[in-house]
């Protein structure tokens, strides 16, 4: 059990990692990364039951699949800060010969990554497959996944959503990063998706909401609640309202920073809003 203050410090440090990583290579996706920072910090350091070290099969531990792979800066920072690989390696993000590819990959053997993602809409199917393997192995641990809300426009998600409910895959917790933004603008403009909670429920999922997805306590509580709802015959969905770019004021409430790096001056502002707590890489 981590103290809340420690998690807050980690959130601040991870945000620094994110903006520094994308700034250095002048590419990457800071908006969604910043918006999900509290979630992923809580997930990896509070919610999930994890073994020491990494093996691909992940038997007897919880698993996480990142479906919206473009928020790789966040994923890499959280993995490194959790001890999966040296924090110094974050400086190789998106560079030639790095294990930290633009989008997560298993190809280079980066510990903590179990599937490539980036081409959207594929992660939920994979999470369901891993959850089925857990059932076959009589492994009572859970499988978590994260998906962008815009990503739900990909049809494969709905195949997977239908499958999981129809087959009572009740050891999966799928979290939706509900920030209302995608590359071309607001999701409500690009392709309105209606009431996601009702949609998941209509497909047979037990669905709960986290109203402030940038509040650590609310996330921890919401995930605890989600965990309690597993094992009851229904897959569990968490719809988490977040603010894209959270923690860096000029990146918030806009899709403009979905896939754009800050310049030197903007980096300084971003860093000044997120104090160094655990040491920059």
């Amino acid at each position, binding site marked *: 059990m981590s103290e809340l203050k420690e998690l807050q410090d980690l959130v601040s440090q991870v945000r620094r990692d994110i903006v520094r990583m994308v700034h250095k290579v002048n590419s990457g996706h800071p908006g969604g990364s910043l918006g999900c920072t509290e979630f992923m910090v809580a997930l990896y350091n509070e919610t999930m039951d994890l073994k020491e070290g990494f093996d691909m099969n992940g038997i007897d531990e919880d698993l996480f699949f990142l479906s919206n792979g473009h928020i790789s800066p966040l994923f890499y920072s959280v993995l490194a800060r959790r001890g999966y690989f040296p924090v110094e390696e974050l400086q190789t993000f998106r560079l030639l010969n790095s294990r930290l590819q633009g989008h997560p990959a298993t190809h280079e053997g980066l510990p903590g990554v179990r599937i490539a993602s980036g081409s959207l809409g594929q992660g939920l199917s*994979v999470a369901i*497959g891993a959850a089925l393997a857990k059932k076959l192995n009589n492994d009572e641990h859970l499988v978590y996944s994260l998906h962008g809300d815009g990503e739900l426009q990909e049809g494969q998600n709905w195949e*997977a959503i239908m*499958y999981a409910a129809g*087959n009572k895959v009740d050891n999966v917790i799928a979290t939706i990063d509900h920030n209302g933004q995608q590359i071309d603008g607001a999701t409500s403009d690009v392709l309105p998706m209606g009431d996601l909670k009702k949609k998941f429920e209509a497909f047979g999922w037990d669905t709960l909401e986290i109203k402030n997805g940038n509040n650590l306590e609310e996330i921890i509580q919401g995930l605890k609640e989600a965990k309690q709802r597993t094992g009851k015959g229904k897959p569990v969905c968490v719809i988490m309202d977040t603010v894209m770019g959270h923690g860096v004021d000029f990146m918030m409430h806009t899709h403009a920073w979905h896939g754009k790096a800050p310049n030197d001056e903007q980096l300084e502002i971003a860093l000044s809003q997120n104090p160094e707590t655990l040491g920059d890489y």
Partner: protein
Amino acid sequence: MKKYIDQGKKDTRSGYGAGMTVLGRTNPKVVALCADLVGSLKIQEFINENPERFFQVGIAEANMMGIAAGLTIGGYIPFTGTFANFSTGRVYDQIRQSIAYSGKNVKICASHAGITLGEDGATHQILEDIGLMKMLPGMTVINPCDFNQTKAATIAIAEHEGPVYLRFGRPAVANFTPADQNFEIGKALLLNEGSDVTIVATGHLVWQSLIAAENLESKGISVEVINIHTIKPLDEEAIIKSVKKTGAIVTAEEHNYLGGLGESVARTLTTKYPVAQEFIATQDTFGESGTPDQLMEKYGLDNKAIEKAVLRVLKRKA
């Protein structure tokens, strides 16, 4: 000419089903998935004997590929089953990212490949799948020739670590390879020794090539026949060894000439030992409705077409 006896016509997809039955009994890590085509893929016996290791995903092939990738995480060896068209083109990006690039140990098993699917027509007759799959880094591509070989291949790929595309067909065809054969991935099989020309064939075209070779022999032409069940990795050594002797080659496949076995062979020969080559394959066209035999004849894939190609290549032989 070495004699091969048809032990009785059988569909290669039943060879897949028979192989799955064996795997169900011998390898507890093997799981099967199917997208609403259990009857077509002949896996009912596997399902009856291992209901907990079977996943019916419905008509949702993209989801099936993702679930298969996920099942490997936990140590399982998933075999996906649907028609070749829906096993490849329909789900190419899912295979590319979640299976091939992710290096997952998934066996993509594809029935009703090629034009011999027959009456359903071009929507279901994929002639591009070998090309699609062989282009994926790390993917093994196998196209066995008959029931016995498909069964053996199914059993063999469970022991191979890494993604595999196993392609087989719908119609009953000659079953002429040994029932107890040991299937070695990537190892070409020399079916008949000859000195004038080499035929390298895959899938249903192997039997057609044997018929063609026999006819040609009666005309005084000595034909070497190679069954190349594995298209990737290609047994380059066996092909080069043969053409060093014969000096001419015909490749034969139930697939578009673009992207198929013939192109892989041509690439090997142009870089290592150039000889005249003729291609038995479809000519960058879609198929159509008809019986398998009618279609094989119309699209130039039967033994008569192979004979003609041999005569053509002999004229060009240096």
